[in-house]
């Protein structure tokens, strides 16, 4: 196997489970420790895994190419840490199931590089309680403009795998040496293996969606974001929002993306036959936490562009709590027993934008038809030529993400972390 092919296999994804024959319940973990550029493996780095419930520890040192292998681990929740003198240790907490092989790639940064990196999302609310200010009517004050631009991951392209590898954002990140190997963008905190827990039939349906994303032939195959449809309560909200509060209401305000009006007066939900793209939200306060329960969802939205569907039986519970004056912790639990094997949860961390621009109309739909049609025509040409595949992420071979013609039409904004105060690249100068 050539080095390149080997790496391509490795790069399928940190959370992709590859079933292996034999050794029924053992876990195998392989991966590579890279430098900040993401292009060079680091030799002689220490990789340590600690089994959380037993404290059992295993340790290996990377080879000349930065590769490591940890065979024969018992299943469970682990903390995996990469370390080397002169670099900031990098760790992640993951759950590994028995009989599976996992790929984990991590990058190591010098302290100077680390200081310039985006921060990871919190995976739980910090234990030390923060006491927020009150609004004039006595609610905990969550008002402000909140976003994830300064964070690593949380992109609504994929809540499991992060940014679309073909986008300029990721290409530029690659050029700037940021987080292209361990940028998994994973904001799923439960289950810890970072995969949406689909029932078997639903996993198959999702693969169909990913095949349709690779080479779309019908308008219905195009992602809601491409078509400027409302994207459902979590996808509309996870990237941050502008929160305003009034007596009886919390509002998530957006000029074009579907303002969410959340009544706090305890009124009943709408009749079940009223299905809404963004669902029907009711809020209440539990201490300093805003709890939003959303029902009456239609079955047309996805959690991200990776075909991650749900049914119209879905109920969502979002919880928003200030971790400190400028940090808002957001989590969303998804309950839909017709599609998933368990209730699952994602968690994100929003940072306050202290100097927000005016929110301007995006005219998303009005300008989208041509872009959407280009993507569709590319897919139709590919399908006519017999080209099939599924949309997947492979940093080493971005051309495998979509059917060939699609790649000519990737038009995306500059990376958000290069200018953290700019929330939109389409905005021209803002009047002050």
């Amino acid at each position, binding site marked *: 196997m050539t080095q390149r092919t080997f790496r391509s296999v490795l790069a399928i994804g940190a959370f992709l489970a590859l079933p292996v024959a034999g050794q029924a319940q053992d876990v195998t973990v392989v991966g590579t420790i890279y430098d900040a550029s993401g292009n060079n493996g680091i030799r002689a780095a220490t990789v340590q895994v600690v089994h959380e419930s037993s404290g059992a520890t295993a340790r290996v040192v990377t080879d000349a190419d930065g590769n490591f292998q940890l065979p024969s681990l018992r299943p469970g929740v682990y903390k995996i840490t990469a370390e080397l003198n002169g670099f900031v240790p990098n760790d992640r907490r993951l759950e590994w199931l028995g009989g599976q092989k996992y790929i984990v790639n991590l990058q190591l940064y010098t302290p100077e590089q680390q200081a310039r990196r985006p921060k990871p999302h919190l995976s739980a609310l910090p234990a030390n309680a923060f006491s927020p200010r009150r609004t004039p009517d006595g609610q905990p004050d969550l008002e402000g403009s909140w976003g994830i631009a300064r964070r690593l991951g949380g992109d609504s392209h994929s809540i499991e795998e992060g940014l679309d590898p073909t986008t300029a954002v990721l290409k530029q990140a690659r050029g700037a040496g940021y987080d292209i190997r361990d940028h998994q963008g994973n904001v799923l905190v439960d289950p810890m293996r970072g995969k949406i827990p689909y029932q078997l039939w639903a996993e198959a349906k999702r693969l169909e969606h990913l095949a349709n994303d690779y080479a779309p032939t*019908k*308008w219905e195959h195009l992602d809601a974001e491409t*078509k400027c449809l409302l994207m459902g309560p979590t996808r509309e909200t996870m990237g941050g929002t502008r929160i305003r509060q009034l007596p009886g209401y919390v509002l998530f305000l*957006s000029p074009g993306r579907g303002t969410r009006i959340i009544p706090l007066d305890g*009124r009943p939900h709408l009749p079940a036959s009223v299905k809404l793209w963004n669902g029907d939200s009711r809020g209440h306060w539990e201490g300093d936490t805003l709890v939003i329960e959303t029902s009456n969802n239609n079955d047309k939205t996805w959690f991200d562009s990776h075909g991650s569907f749900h049914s119209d039986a879905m109920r969502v519970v979002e919880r928003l709590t200030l971790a400190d004056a400028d940090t808002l912790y957001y989590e969303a639990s998804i309950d839909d027993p017709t599609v998933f094997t368990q209730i699952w949860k994602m968690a994100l961390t929003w940072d306050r934008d202290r100097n927000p621009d*005016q929110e*301007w109309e995006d005219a998303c739909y009005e300008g989208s038809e041509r872009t959407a049609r280009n993507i569709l025509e590319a897919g139709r040409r590919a399908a006519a030529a017999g080209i099939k595949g599924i949309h997947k992420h492979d940093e080493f071979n971005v051309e495998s993400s979509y059917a060939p013609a699609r790649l000519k039409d990737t038009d995306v904004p500059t990376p958000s972390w290069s200018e953290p105060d700019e929330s939109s690249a389409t905005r021209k*100068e803002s009047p002050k």
Partner: protein
Amino acid sequence: MSSWVKDLTMAVAAITAVAIAPMAASGQAQGAGGSGYTPPRTQDGQPDLQGIWQALNSAEWDIQAHAAEKGVPAGIGVVEGNEIPYQPWAAARKKENFENRLTADPLSKCYRPGVPRITYLSFPFQIFQFPDMVAIVYEYLHYTRFIYMDGKSTHPDPNVIDFWMGHSLGRWEGNTLVVDTTNFNDQTWFDRAGNFHSDALHVVERFTRTSPDVVNYDVSIEDPKVFTRPWKMTMPVYRRQEKDLQLLEYECYPDRYDELEKADEEARKAK
């Protein structure tokens, strides 16, 4: 102007001059705070316009007085004096728009309806007031207007950027919310009858509560590229009374994509 439109306009103008003029006069008096009604205040002291409101007229079909046709209720019109002072070229263009209205109306493509048309579509909207901003959330196409009330914001350079829904700045004149909107594109219409404007459109809306459940909505329209002089619309909007009413969604786009899919299929078959 076509002869029948002209005839209709003159006839309706004659009939409604008596009816509309006193309404307009009373609207102005109310705008100046003379209606005798003092609205309650918000927690930060603004006249309270909050709630779910909706127009109840047939201006979405035609802002001028018109007879009924299939699926379209007749209406007495909302234009003061019932005349829209088009320049000659623009009157011809309006006539053409009217003839092609079923396909040429931007709403048939699900485009944003512009201002003031979004106010008198038959969909509710909800007003929220903050110290520095009034937000109007419209059920139609999930649009939210941000009306900046900080007194410092200015309109962006119209040569640099324009919007389907314009850029809005607001201020209080007595109990009246005055909203000044510019930076429009030339793509939206005032109604299904093809009344239109250019990108030089300047809209000033006046929202005045005249009773607990009625807001008087005055609009002045200026567009020197299309009209010979400024003109006005006026109409009441009413508070929706249903218990536990809330804004729902009208998305439009999914139906439009279904239409595109059908058109693509037919094109394939034709090949």
